[in-house]
């Protein structure tokens, strides 16, 4: 542990081959560039979803405000939830999966580079299908969980829910394709010596998340297929008059939905587990326990879904069982908190912006975790359910947990991504305004909830004791908005003008810091041999990567060709396939419009287009 931060070079290292221009981005199959695409797209949607939240908070700032109508309000909270879950936190995690997993395990790319590009384009297409309708006042309006029968045609006859069903189905394809890819990458592409129990914790948590994705997403796929068939083909899955169980959707949705919560939070836990050891200059306390508790959280996540349904009347036995399984999850989660605190204990802590966000996650997530334990008790939950107390709870775990963790990751990995540092002074301003804003927004919601304010109401009367708490929540949004504005200024400015980082500006221990920043397209000039969990602290740098003389020539990095490394060809086919697939599914909308021939025409044409694209894809060489 004597390695200090490596000195930064005067200019960014490059192979001289880096292509710019829009075509290079449309055809890229490089996991790092796809990671950047995910990052930038998700940050765009973050602004979008944040604006929706800002309108919601403006409407609720005082009693009986008339900024939006009840119908517009339904669209706003539905889209805020859907956007933040599926288009912000998941793809922000995907950005890190893409960028980091191959670097952390010592690989040159993911197992299926073209499938990886396909995942991104499908995600983007699904995101557009879900979000665009709000511009025409036709956004989905059934809540992010889209409870059927409410979302069946009998109660939601407009196109709104159609966009939601199709969009989520398309986003599911993107997540599944990515998950198969990352599972294969982690199982199969680890560098020699990178045994499972030496993998960085971020890769471990990502590994768990991919299994949650492949096991949870098919369940919502089935639920969405039923809803889609009900809406387009007149089936009876959610028609109560035909004998359907009004709870079928809720069960299927939450069998997916609860693992989804861990899909959102575990990557942030992984990022924090990278940041805390580096800035404490200590190995992670209890690495195996952190790994096992992450696996346990993922496994238990499939056995707690009905705690979202205590108020539907499942009976005392089901309520008790799901209460107990929910309380059990507190154990592995608490273990993680203990491990993080113990990692910092006695360490040489450096309060960088990244470290501060990581510490804030530990604190804020604990607040959200404690209110979560309160909900696990069915009698308590009956009082809290559908109130702002629940809104406070899940914003503490998703903003105080996932978003703060991801921010810790952004400040930590920005140098590896771009070769330049984010400004620390602006970073500190971002940190304090955002964290104060988060608490100011969400803490008073505990109070408005306990005073009886229900969720999803578009306005309220004065005199119920809710005014002050709502006003405080709305003021908090201003602080959050200032914080995020500072972040975006910092992000854009530093990308071009930030201080040059060098390979390892933080003195970090894991493999990704052994190679140049920004990372050359082939990642590793030669595949390293790993002998410890913290190779850069325990092994000599020269043992891990070839000396500069071997990897550079004439003041620049050697190209892949000069090193004899085969690289995958760029290709437009994944993008074309994603467009055909999305257009094919969207053809269904014309069934709703009553134009069956047009629907069939679009679906058959695009289906054939997709088939030809796939044939071309499968028959063209990868590299």
């Amino acid at each position: 542990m004597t390695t200090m931060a490596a000195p930064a070079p005067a200019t960014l290292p490059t192979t001289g081959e880096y292509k710019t221009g829009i075509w290079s981005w449309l055809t890229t199959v490089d996991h790092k560039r796809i990671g950047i695409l995910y990052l930038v797209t998700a940050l765009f949607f973050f602004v979008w979803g944040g604006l929706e939240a800002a309108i919601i908070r403006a409407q609720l700032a005082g009693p009986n405000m008339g900024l939006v109508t009840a119908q517009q309000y339904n669209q706003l909270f539905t889209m805020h939830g859907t956007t933040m879950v599926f288009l912000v936190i998941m793809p922000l995690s995907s950005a890190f999966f893409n960028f980091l997993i191959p670097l952390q395990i010592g690989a040159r790319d993911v197992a299926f580079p073209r499938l990886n590009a396909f995942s991104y384009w499908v995600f983007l297409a699904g995101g557009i299908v879900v979000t665009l309708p709000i511009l025409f006042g036709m956004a989905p309006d059934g809540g992010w969980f889209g409870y059927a029968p409410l979302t069946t045609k009998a109660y939601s006859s407009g196109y709104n829910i159609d966009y939601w069903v199709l969009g989520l189905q398309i986003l599911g394809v993107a997540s599944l394709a990515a998950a198969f890819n990352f599972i294969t990458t982690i199982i199969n592409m680890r560098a020699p010596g990178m045994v499972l129990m030496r993998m960085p914790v971020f890769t471990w948590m990502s590994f768990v998340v991919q299994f949650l994705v492949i096991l949870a997403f098919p369940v919502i796929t089935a639920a969405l297929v039923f809803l889609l068939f009900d809406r387009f083909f007149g089936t009876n899955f959610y028609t109560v008059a035909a004998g359907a169980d009004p709870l079928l959707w809720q069960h299927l949705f939450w069998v997916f939905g609860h693992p989804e919560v861990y899909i959102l939070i575990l990557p942030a836990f992984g990022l924090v587990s990278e940041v805390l050891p580096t800035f404490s200059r200590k190995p992670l306390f209890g690495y195996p326990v952190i790994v096992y508790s992450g696996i346990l959280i993922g496994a238990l996540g499939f056995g707690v879904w009905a705690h979202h349904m205590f108020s539907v009347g499942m009976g005392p036995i089901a309520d008790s069982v799901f209460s107990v399984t929910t309380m059990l999850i507190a154990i592995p989660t608490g273990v993680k908190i203990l491990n993080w605190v113990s990692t910092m204990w006695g360490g040489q802590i450096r309060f960088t912006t990244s470290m501060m966000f990581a510490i804030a996650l530990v604190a804020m997530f604990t607040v959200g975790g404690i209110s979560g334990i309160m909900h696990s008790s069915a009698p308590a939950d009956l009082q809290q359910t559908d109130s702002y107390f629940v809104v406070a709870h899940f914003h503490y775990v998703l903003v105080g947990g996932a978003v703060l963790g991801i921010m810790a990751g952004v400040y930590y990995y920005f140098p590896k991504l771009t070769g330049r540092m984010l400004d620390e002074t602006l970073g500190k301003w971002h940190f304090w305004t955002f964290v104060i804003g988060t608490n100011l927004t969400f803490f008073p919601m505990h109070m408005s909830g306990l005073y009886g304010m229900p969720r999803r109401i578009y306005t309220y009367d004065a005199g119920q004791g809710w005014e002050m708490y709502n006003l405080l929540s709305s003021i908090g949004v201003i602080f959050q908005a200032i914080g995020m504005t500072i972040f975006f200024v910092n992000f854009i400015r530093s990308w071009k003008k930030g201080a040059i980082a060098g390979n390892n500006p933080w003195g970090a221990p894991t493999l990704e810091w052994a190679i140049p920043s920004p990372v050359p397209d082939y990642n590793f000039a030669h595949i390293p041999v790993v002998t410890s969990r913290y190779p850069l602290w325990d092994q000599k740098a020269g043992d891990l990567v070839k000396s500069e003389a071997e990897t550079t020539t004439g003041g620049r990095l050697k190209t892949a060709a000069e090193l004899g490394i085969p690289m995958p060809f760029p290709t437009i086919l994944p993008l074309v396939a994603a467009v055909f697939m999305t257009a094919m599914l969207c053809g269904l909308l014309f069934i709703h419009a009553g134009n069956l021939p047009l629907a069939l025409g679009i679906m058959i044409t695009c289906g054939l287009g997709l088939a030809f694209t796939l044939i071309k894809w499968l028959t063209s060489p990868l590299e």
Partner: protein
Amino acid sequence: MATAAIAESHSHGEVSHHRTSTGLNHRKVAVWAFIGSECMLFVSLISTYLIYKGRSVVGPYPHENWTDPATGKVFKEILNIPVTSASTFVLLMSSLAMVLALAAVQNKDKPMPTGWWDRQLRSSKLWLWMTALLGTTFLGFQAYEFTSFVHEGLTIRTNLFGSSFFTLTGFHGAHVTVGVLWLLALLGIDYKRGLKPADALNVDIAALYWHFVDVVWIAIFTLIYLIK
């Protein structure tokens, strides 16, 4: 020890580009993950069918007759177990043919045996065709089943049984169709340049998928048809 390991890796030159940590091919690992995911899809579809069993408020029903109270018309029990037993047998036999097709490809470069039957066993084209034809025959049975159900008054809109039955078996049929197309693609390669032992992995992966779809049908046949 670390230095020794590194020295060894250097003396053997660059680590092979296509080395995998487990020794398994990437696509094979991915297909196993895909099959795990597909299990959850069919578990959801089958569970929904079972949850809705006996909840339809109007007939026709799977295992008993139903008299329409409005018209007095009698609808017979819908499921035809003898016919479906035959189609199940056909699909099971297709898995056997798939195994033989894979073995034929794996043994391509071994000397050709003399016996007539042994030589047939070495024909990858024969067994790929057999698998595809048996799969198509199963689909034919399903098409017959669906049309006869519609004639007997059961559509996907009629009741919960119709909705959940057609969706579940339709999804399975779609999977068989994909499998048949996959087999035809392999046959295309076989006719174009001949499948070699090096292609065994491609056939192996198709076989994994085919057997999975077959196993799902055994679950469907047992839970939906045989258990009343």
